[in-house]
């Protein structure tokens, strides 16, 4: 999960993203190195989620370049971007985004099955992750029957399924109660400590200080400041 050459896993250069006449990102340049845990903070509408979308290849910049794990996303077509997302990144969302019709195990296995992995192999790998994340007993349960914390753990398992170069999390504790939020924070911290590169977007100061080694503050689509943190965990 680390970059063997010690180079930046994520490299943004002068990225600008416009929606109509307003700029959600305005000349953002940023590097994230392998093994880092970076938190992006800022008020609503400051451009945090747009930044995450650029790194995940969910959206394209109006100008500037985004390079992730050596892939220049500006050169990829829609299919190329899909393959990039499949192989290089894992995403965690505030509202989990699990498929209601699939069991927890099949939700996680799905990510591998899209790469052509057989159902049996995908389920085996998913079960390993369930055991690592402490939710093996809930593998055959459906999303509507899981608690918020459990749903987010399933979402984390899905994000890790294809061993991504970077894990992107958009307000991962935003829809959770305090206890479930803390469990997810612990999980992310554990992952980073075993080498998983993390990029978090959050309003939650506690999440940032607990999980991130670096905090980037966003205001009006620009980087307003950057801080290195001593983790409190």
């Amino acid at each position, binding site marked *: 999960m680390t970059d063997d050459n010690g180079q930046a896993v994520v490299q943004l250069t002068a990225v600008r993203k416009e929606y109509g006449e307003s700029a959600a990102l305005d000349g953002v340049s940023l590097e994230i190195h392998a093994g880092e845990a970076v938190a992006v903070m800022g008020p609503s509408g400051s451009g945090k989620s747009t930044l995450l*979308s650029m790194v995940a290849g969910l959206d394209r910049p109006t100008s500037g370049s985004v390079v992730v794990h050596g892939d220049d996303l500006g050169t990829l077509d829609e299919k190329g971007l899909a393959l990039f997302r499949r192989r290089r990144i894992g995403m965690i969302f505030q*509202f989990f985004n699990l*498929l209601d019709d*699939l*069991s927890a195990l099949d939700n996680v296995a*799905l*990510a591998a099955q*899209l790469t052509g992995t057989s*159902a049996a192999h995908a389920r085996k790998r998913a079960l390993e992750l369930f055991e690592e994340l402490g939710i093996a007993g809930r593998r055959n349960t*459906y999303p509507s029957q899981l608690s918020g914390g459990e749903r987010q753990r399933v979402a984390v398992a899905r994000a890790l399924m294809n061993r991504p170069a970077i894990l992107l999390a958009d307000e991962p504790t935003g829809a959770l109660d305090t206890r479930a939020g803390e469990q997810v924070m612990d999980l992310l911290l554990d992952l980073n400590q075993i080498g998983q590169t993390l990029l978090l977007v959050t309003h939650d100061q506690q999440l940032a200080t607990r999980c991130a080694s670096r905090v980037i503050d966003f205001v009006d689509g620009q980087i307003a400041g950057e801080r290195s943190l001593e983790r409190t965990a």
Partner: protein
Amino acid sequence: MSAVWPVARAAVRRRRVQTVVIGVVVLLSTTMIVVALGLLAASSGPFDRAYAKQSGSQLTASYDRSKVTDAQLTEAARSAAAVGGPFPQVTLDLAQPQMMGSLVAVGRADPGGAVDRLNVWKGRWATKPGEIVLNRNPTESSGRGKPQLNGTLSAGGQTLTIVGFAYSVSQSADAWVTPEQLNALHPTSTQMLYRFTHAATNAELTAGQKAVTAGLPSDALIGTQSYLALRALTAGQPNTFIPFLMVFGWLGLAVAVLIVANVVSGAVVAGFKHIGVLKSLGFTPTQVLTVYLGMVSIPAVVGCAGGVVLGNVLATSLLTRAFENYGAGGTSVPIWVDVVTLLGVPALVALSAFLPALKARSLSAAQAISAGSAPRAGRGLRVQRVLSGTRLPRSVSLGLGLPFARPGRTALTLAAVVLGVTSVTLAVGLGKSLTTYQTAASRAGAVDLAIFAGPNGSGPEGPGAPPGAKLTDAEDEAVLRSAPGVTSVAAMADLEMRLAGTQSDLRVSFYRGDFEQVGYRILAGRWFDGPGQVVVSERFLKQRGLAVGDTITLQSKGKSVRAQIVGKAMYNSGDEVLSNWATLALIAPDLRANIYEVNVKPGTDLDAVVKAVQAKDSGLQETEGQDAGTFVAVVLATVVLLTLMLGTVAALGVFNTVVLNTRERRRDLGMLKSIGMTPAQVTLMVVTSMIALGAVGGLLGIPVGIVAHRLVVPAMANGAQIELPDFMLEVYPAGLLALLVLAGIVISAAGAYFPARTAARTTIAEVLHNE
């Protein structure tokens, strides 16, 4: 209510795609319904109105004057409700450029009377010898080349001045003169016109006929014409259209109802939050219900109005075409059809929206808002689990599971596809039945070569005119039989004849030689084998109320021949009779064959045969064989058009479902793309979900279509007055059935593809961040 209208209008604007789908589907369905109902209502209307106005003759009979007196006829007619006649009658041969053939003239002192009150629409009635009134439809062309008022015509050795034009809906004569003038023309028969107390059916008419001929010499009656046969003749074309138009119309309306129910239930499900907001603003449950009914009623009313207009245009065109030679007027769609459709179709659409709209009405504001944002329990979970474990590509297995997530919507969509496949199955069957019939009835391809022989000795009459034959009839037949590869030769002579007692001019084809080899199929009775025998078509029998075994009298060139109908053959024309050379010898023994129908061994060079016979008789010319009828082509074109319309409607049903599904699953689609599903995989997943429905719809729709075919084709055959051989119904071989399953898949794939592509292009960031 003032708050309801703007909200309903806004809902229509917000759901543009569904609004257009509802409008188009209702428009197409209404068009089909109006055309079908319009034809049904109007097909016998003009005839009945005109008949009532003229007090038309229900039975027109001709009697042999040498066998029965006027006094006997008058006495015998006492049982009739009303009587016209006795009138002297004669068939005159004409020989002038405008009017070739023969003319039935009747002597009548005036155009009125209790029966067959003639409409003298131009000029005046004949009041003295030397004057004649012609029977002509007021709508018929009276331009150059047609007899004109104050013109003259020569008939029976006398010159008569045309003093007027009258129209008889009973078709009782071609012309009328005074009784004195008719007596001077040496009448051969007497015409009687009857109306009966009961004459609604053929049986009642037959009973009436028996009553008015009781006590008369048995061979005095030489011919009759029933008004039911005339009406059947008039309504033949519209009656052929009605059965399948009705079926297509109802199928279309059923699909429209399914789609509307689907749209509204989808809108309710997708609009929980919207409903909650409306209620929290103070909308009453009934106002919410009205908003949702209004949402579908607006496009439904617009579509229905458009459909009524379009239906009127199409139906009027078809009716005008069908009744153009009839002249009774009033061949438009009756107003009640428009009123019933304009009220009924939107009501039906609103009714189909009512149940799902009731759901919107009954939800509390809190329920609605929380239902719009809470995670929902999954559906079809067992199926999803099984599919997850298969070896199918994941996008395919996910697609196959999608229909189980919304069983109600799936059932409605499936029903639309079933109806679409039913339409295609019916249309394919109709097409095959019609073309099979047409091929058999027109004898297309049954004869390899048709050779024309002009009368002996006639030289070229103008540029391009065929030369006369050089050899005799018998010699030409021998030449053809000896040509290389020839296996059969049927010699045929045509003669224009008049069916006694009617105004019908018939073309009688007299055959000799191998006439059993020229493609006619005997449906009942047998071929002729002696003089005075004829074979006719089902249409001929139905139009004249005759049956195999009856005897008819044919007249030509002042001669009459009584002929027994010995068989019924399969061909379209109601004005063509087949007979044999022995019968021709009774009327025109010197007539030679003008057509030779020749069949050859497989692989024979037809050009070589033609060259060989022309080497011996340069007067023989190859001529074109039988061609397909235009009416069948019109019916086939209509069927294809309706099938495309219904296929489109069914595909729109699928389209609508996919739009609803993909909108509801935007978040899921965004998530799938975020974990690496490519646009092609998204498209495949969504299209697969509907293809599965299409395949099931195909399997269910085919038997329904076959049943519809079994009902519609006999009804059409009855309307068209043709016999229905079994082979017209055996049109679904196994290979075709397999192909028809594809119809459901094609309808589904066509309906699903575009919304699937749109879903595949969804911007993920927008979907996933707008929680």
